[in-house]
């Protein structure tokens, strides 16, 4: 618990009832009028950030939860509202990042947001009802509809550009094409099944999701994973970050027709994946992080292999960063392109390299922080320009930072077991008494940003009642629409790749 409660937590404590079965952040049950008051407080407190909004159940027994984070410090907190009338007061007007989440809640749970900013469906596509794209008016405008099947090897989604000549005056996204019903599949799943599913919400963030799920389960069951497991988890998470950043840098440069960088980054990325397979048994490290620890230990020769990889990457990424910096024709495409204002990044609580390239320093490894990062010193790079160039440079900086973290993680690898059993359900310390459901939440920094997993376990501690994985893309996709404004159509691939939002993670 923090030394002193933040203003946010003080507000929630004053207006709601604390739910003791929820860990590690406090959760408060609010009455309807307090929920409305909270909406107004969000409007007047710019540093109370909305980091999640989801529902459980369906009419007549349903509930909505809002995860909030006070930038001034302290733990995040969750506000909950019972919805016996199948509706809840909308907060989209105060926090635009909530608009699509509210549309999703209506699609998936049948709960109606009252006075919503946008009342169209989102994840569920009804073939009988044509989607209402936003109206556009103006002289000599034309539409360019793109997708859901795109030209490259990427995920499906629909982009509707409204252009004046070459200039984009508006982009509207329509997502939901890869909606699979993951949250419904998780209801009633065993921990093993659920871990496999959550680890595949977004394949590129397999470690981040598995880690967030494991940490949420451990919080709910009051289990502390062994120190060695924390180190190995961080090792995997940093390898995942490096692999994805390398892929992104190459792909962004390739979209500016600089294939050289794509080829070189592709080589390094493959080196990372092969090392991951040799050390952890899976190229994308799927199913390697499990509740209670990690699935397999890392031997000394494997650790040496990771060290050799780090040495190669140190040298090569430094050289590539220099090449990137010296190519004027490449910079011509990236500098000033797709600029995102820090005001918007902050308003949407955009995490990851998107937020950090636009002056938002948030990094879940630092705040709220978790093991083993809380014991380590590391820099969180931040840039202010918010353009494609800044997002490329930031990735180079983060690779460097991750490489240094990996070196230190290997050097300080504690001895001991890597997996511990989850605490038995019988009377854990303090409340609850053992017969109640348990709730846990975790925020983990994936390569793309902060991944949130919230869950409720049955009293046996082995069955998932409800689990909500929230991808960082929820708060990044809407910003792509803002960043592309005023840019030319051929720069869209650069903007899109530099954002690299997840379709699968968003569509669930």
């Amino acid at each position: 618990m923090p030394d002193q409660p933040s203003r946010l937590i003080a507000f929630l404590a004053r207006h709601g009832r604390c739910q003791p079965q929820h860990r590690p952040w406090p959760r408060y049950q609010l009455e309807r009028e307090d929920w409305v008051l909270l909406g107004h407080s969000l409007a007047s407190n710019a540093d109370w950030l909305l980091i999640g909004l989801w529902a459980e159940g369906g009419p007549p027994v349903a509930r909505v939860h809002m995860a909030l984070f006070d930038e001034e410090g302290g733990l995040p907190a969750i506000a909950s509202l019972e919805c016996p009338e199948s509706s809840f007061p909308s907060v989209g007007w105060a926090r635009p990042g909530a608009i699509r989440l509210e549309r999703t809640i209506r699609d998936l749970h049948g709960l109606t947001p009252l006075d919503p900013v946008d009342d169209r469906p989102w994840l569920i596509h009804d073939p009988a009802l044509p989607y209402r794209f936003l109206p556009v008016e103006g002289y000599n405008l034309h539409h360019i509809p793109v997708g859901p099947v795109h030209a490259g090897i990427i995920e499906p989604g629909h982009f509707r550009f409204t252009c004046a000549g070459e200039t984009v005056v508006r982009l509207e996204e329509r997502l939901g094409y890869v909606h699979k019903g993951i949250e419904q599949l998780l209801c009633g799943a065993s921990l093993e099944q659920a871990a496999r599913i959550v680890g595949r919400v977004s394949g590129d963030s397999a470690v981040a999701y598995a880690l967030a799920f494991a940490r949420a389960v451990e919080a709910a069951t009051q289990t502390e994973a062994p120190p060695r497991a924390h180190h190995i988890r961080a090792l995997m998470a940093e390898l995942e970050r490096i692999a994805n950043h390398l892929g992104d840098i190459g792909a962004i440069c390739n979209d500016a027709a600089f294939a050289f960088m794509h080829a070189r980054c592709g080589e390094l990325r493959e080196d990372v994946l092969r090392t991951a397979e040799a050390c952890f048994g899976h190229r994308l490290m799927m199913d390697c992080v499990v509740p209670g620890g990690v699935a397999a230990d890392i031997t000394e020769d494997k650790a040496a292999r990771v060290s050799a990889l780090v040495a190669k990457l140190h040298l090569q990424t430094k050289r590539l960063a220099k090449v990137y910096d010296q190519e004027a024709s490449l910079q011509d495409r990236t500098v000033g392109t797709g600029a995102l204002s820090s005001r918007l990044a902050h308003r949407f609580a955009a995490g990851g390299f998107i937020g950090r390239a636009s002056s938002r320093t948030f990094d879940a490894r630092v705040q709220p922080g978790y093991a083993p990062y809380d014991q380590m010193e590391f820099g969180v790079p931040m840039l202010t320009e918010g353009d494609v160039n800044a997002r490329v440079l930031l990735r180079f900086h983060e690779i460097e930072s991750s490489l240094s973290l990996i070196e230190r993680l290997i050097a300080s690898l504690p001895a001991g077991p890597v997996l511990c059993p989850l605490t038995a359900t019988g009377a854990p310390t303090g409340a609850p008494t053992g017969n109640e459901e348990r709730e846990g939440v975790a925020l983990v920094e994936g390569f793309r940003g902060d991944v949130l997993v919230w869950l409720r376990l049955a009293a046996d501690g082995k069955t998932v009642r409800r689990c909500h994985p929230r991808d960082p893309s929820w708060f990044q996709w809407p910003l792509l629409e803002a960043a592309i404004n005023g840019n030319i159509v051929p720069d869209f691939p650069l903007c899109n790749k530099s954002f690299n939002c997840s379709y699968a993670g968003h569509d669930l």
Partner: protein
Amino acid sequence: MFRFLARAVLSRSLAEPPPPVLEEDVQALARRVTEVARDRLGRGLTIRAVDAGSCNGCELEIHALNNVYNDLERFGLHFTASPRHADVLLVTGPVTVNMREALERTWTATPDPKWVVAVGACGLDGGVFRGGTGVVGGIDAVIPVDLHIPGCPPSPTRLLQGLLALLEVVKA
């Protein structure tokens, strides 16, 4: 930059020898290839990748086919942007309800003779997402499948084996 290129010119190619083609893949494909198809296709195959609902893990490994180690294009295989230019649809994921029509239309837009390669555990029967409210099922629940490449996700090597088997059968 130039020092970098000079170093690359002087060092050996990173492309690795192709993996052996699996007999089971050849068997699965052989029945579909007619003489007519062989004449039309010539020496190469053009692939259109379609994500019908995957978690994007398979896409990452399909991307890896193009890296310097696997260098897919040396085998006469390359990816195209339009299904109208494609011989092969490389389809990933369980087919979602929302992607069903797009997949059917992509398949219809691909000229005959064409092959469909389903990728990954989800492509077979929906994998871990089987039974989801938004999931139709495996790829063959929507379009006919000629070859299935297993794995979650399949490694680039395994993907390459499947595609080379296709090439071998077509050329034979």
